[in-house]
């Protein structure tokens, strides 16, 4: 596991890693990376606002109150403030709980939630310029992703929820940069965060799954603030045979953390889900939306969805009984797209999933697995009442790396999440404030846009 010949042998991988990250944070973000960071931030914030009334957020707020926590940190979407710890926990939880957040496909990390949560928890206290805030967010995401790549894919495959384990490292980096640390303090924060990984995949299907990025954010705050007090973990905490990498994976490639400074950005590979369900069903939903634009639902007698075999394995539920099951049902996604002309969060609410119209379309839809169809492609065949058959093809699903969500699509997603909670004016402000963050004097406007109070919120 050790790279004894590398120049970092004396000071350790964490210090070299922190040095690379500090270089990234000192230079202006390359424009495409700044833009990608803004997209990730908008996505994470709008999801946290959209889920702000989830029972898990209620429980976090109730626990914070019962324990006597109090403070000025905003909880996105709510008219309620708390301390930095619970603020970070609530925001990171809410951004992930709908399984609708960003995904770095190689590692399966959802990097936005934890780093956004740290930014919101510390922005009031540290008063960064917009550019500084965006760099701290982007480099924190990058830290998560590079740490994740160095131990992937074995780490996730064994059963670790990588968004929690690597999230704490990224969160510590975002916190350290916002707090204005020098390189040695940043290295201490990274080392301490490496002792605080969390997340077993056994938690999937419970609130504990989204607890992982929330607590990763809180752990990152603790690691950074402990580093500010001069506390530290051993220099080789990552590469030691009794350290982070050996504990969490059978693979460790330190060059993925410390090589190629600035030459590559893993954040550039970040993707965004257009639909709140398993990603392999997305091309079939795209095809259904195309079909719905061509024919009336009443004209369709039967549907055959030709798809990658993984769709049947992972999304093969033909008769989901609630929203959670529907997230694993490709035929529900197709049915919702045809009945409602969209497949957003509303199409995955329990009551919507159980209605007769979508049940009828699901029942008349057949999944046809085909090993020749790529994971981001699909072909949907519709048999019509007049006896003819028409077909829709999707080469690359919306939101795939070959066909990233456009800014307009991402903004439409954000509006659909934010508007029901904070109103249209807040949704518009949020969009402006995030996309204008790199030139904003501070984060004040952004912090105002994520809570009730602007215009006529509902």
């Amino acid at each position, binding site marked *: 596991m050790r790279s004894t010949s590398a120049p970092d042998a004396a000071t350790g991988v964490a210090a070299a890693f922190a040095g690379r990250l500090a270089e990234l944070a000192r230079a202006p973000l390359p424009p495409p990376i700044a833009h990608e960071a803004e997209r990730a931030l908008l996505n994470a914030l709008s999801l946290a606002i959209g889920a702000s009334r989830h029972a898990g957020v209620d429980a976090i707020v109730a626990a914070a109150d019962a324990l006597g926590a109090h403070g000025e940190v905003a909880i996105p979407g709510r008219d309620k403030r708390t301390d930095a710890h619970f603020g970070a926990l609530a925001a990171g939880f809410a951004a992930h709980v709908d399984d609708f957040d960003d995904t770095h496909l190689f590692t399966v990390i959802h990097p936005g939630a934890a780093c956004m949560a740290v930014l919101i928890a510390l922005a009031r206290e540290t008063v960064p310029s917009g550019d500084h805030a965006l760099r701290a967010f982007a480099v924190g995401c990058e830290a998560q992703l590079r740490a994740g790549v160095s131990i992937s894919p074995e780490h996730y495959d064994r059963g670790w929820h990588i968004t929690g384990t690597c999230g704490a490292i990224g969160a510590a980096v975002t916190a350290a940069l916002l707090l204005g640390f020098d390189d040695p303090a940043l290295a201490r924060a990274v080392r301490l965060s*490496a002792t605080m990984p969390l997340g077993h995949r056994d938690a999937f299907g419970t609130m504990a799954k989204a607890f992982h990025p929330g607590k990763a954010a809180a752990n990152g705050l603790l690691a950074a603030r402990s580093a500010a007090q001069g506390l530290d973990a051993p220099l080789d905490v990552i590469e030691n045979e009794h*350290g982070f990498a050996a504990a969490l994976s059978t693979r460790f490639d330190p060059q993925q953390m410390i090589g190629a400074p600035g030459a590559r950005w893993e954040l550039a590979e970040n993707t965004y889900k257009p639909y709140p369900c398993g990603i392999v069903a997305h091309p079939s939903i795209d095809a259904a939306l195309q079909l719905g634009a061509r024919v009336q639902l009443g004209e369709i007698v039967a549907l055959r969805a030709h798809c990658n075999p993984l769709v049947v394995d992972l999304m093969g539920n033909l008769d989901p009984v609630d929203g959670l099951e529907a997230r694993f049902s490709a035929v529900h996604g197709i049915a919702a797209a045809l009945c409602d002309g969209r497949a957003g969060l509303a199409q995955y609410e329990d009551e919507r999933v159980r209605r007769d119209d979508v049940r009828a379309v699901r029942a008349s839809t057949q999944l046809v697995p085909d090993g020749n169809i790529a994971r981001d492609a699909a072909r949907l065949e519709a048999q019509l009442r007049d006896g003819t058959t028409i077909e829709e093809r999707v080469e690359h699903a919306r939101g795939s790396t070959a066909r990233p969500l456009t800014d307009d699509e991402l903004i439409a997603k954000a509006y659909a999440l934010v508007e029901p909670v904070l109103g249209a004016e807040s949704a518009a402000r949020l969009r402006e404030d995030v996309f204008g963050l790199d030139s904003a004097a501070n984060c004040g406007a952004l912090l105002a846009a994520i809570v009730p109070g602007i215009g006529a919120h509902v």
Partner: protein
Amino acid sequence: MSSAAAPVAGASEALAAFAVVEHAGEGFVEAFRTAEARLAAAGAVLVSPRDTAERAKIALASNAAVLRRAFVAATALASVDAMREDAAIIGAALAAAEIAPYDDRAPAEAIAVGREVAARMRGAIEFDAPWDVEAIADRIGAAAGAARLFGLDAGQARHALGLAATQAAGLGVAEPVSAGYLTRGKAAFDAVEGAALARAGFTSAPAALEGRRGLIALMAHGSAEALIQGLGTHWLSVVS
């Protein structure tokens, strides 16, 4: 599964129930006495400030007094060799007792239960080499003790233990130094936080220890049955 015999509880379910039920018998009496002795020893340590704990106190991002108390006490105890083994269990119990209904036996009962859960985590399963076994066992024990002091029912206690399991951490490389003390301070903080969350309705994996991708599968080898063999009648924590 559908036979008429009483269903055998999984390890997580059984430990959660053990954490919150009333105990009696010779083994428990002995465990309670040991816990009282540990509390007294902790009291003697906690009268003097300890460097790592003082720094950690400033570093905490929560101002919730009970969480701060758990973190600082456990970190201070962990920095003394003789008190490291159950630092999180004692720190969490001391803090949780402050907001629990007054009962002068409750803190030692919680520590006795927590120490028993921890003894089973250390003794019944074999952790992979990189892990700080004592810290992980201490964390699960701390969660059991906090669940008891918070008056959780068995179902809530299971969620509290599940939150502790999914946060189980502690690296061997950090064990003997200040980062290892923080690991124990954090375990106590997390135990109290988890109990409060579970009481407020937060959920976690129902079989967080023995599940297919739970603590034992990811971090250790060994059978979950061994964890709960003789639980409640045979007190491993007092057989030295």
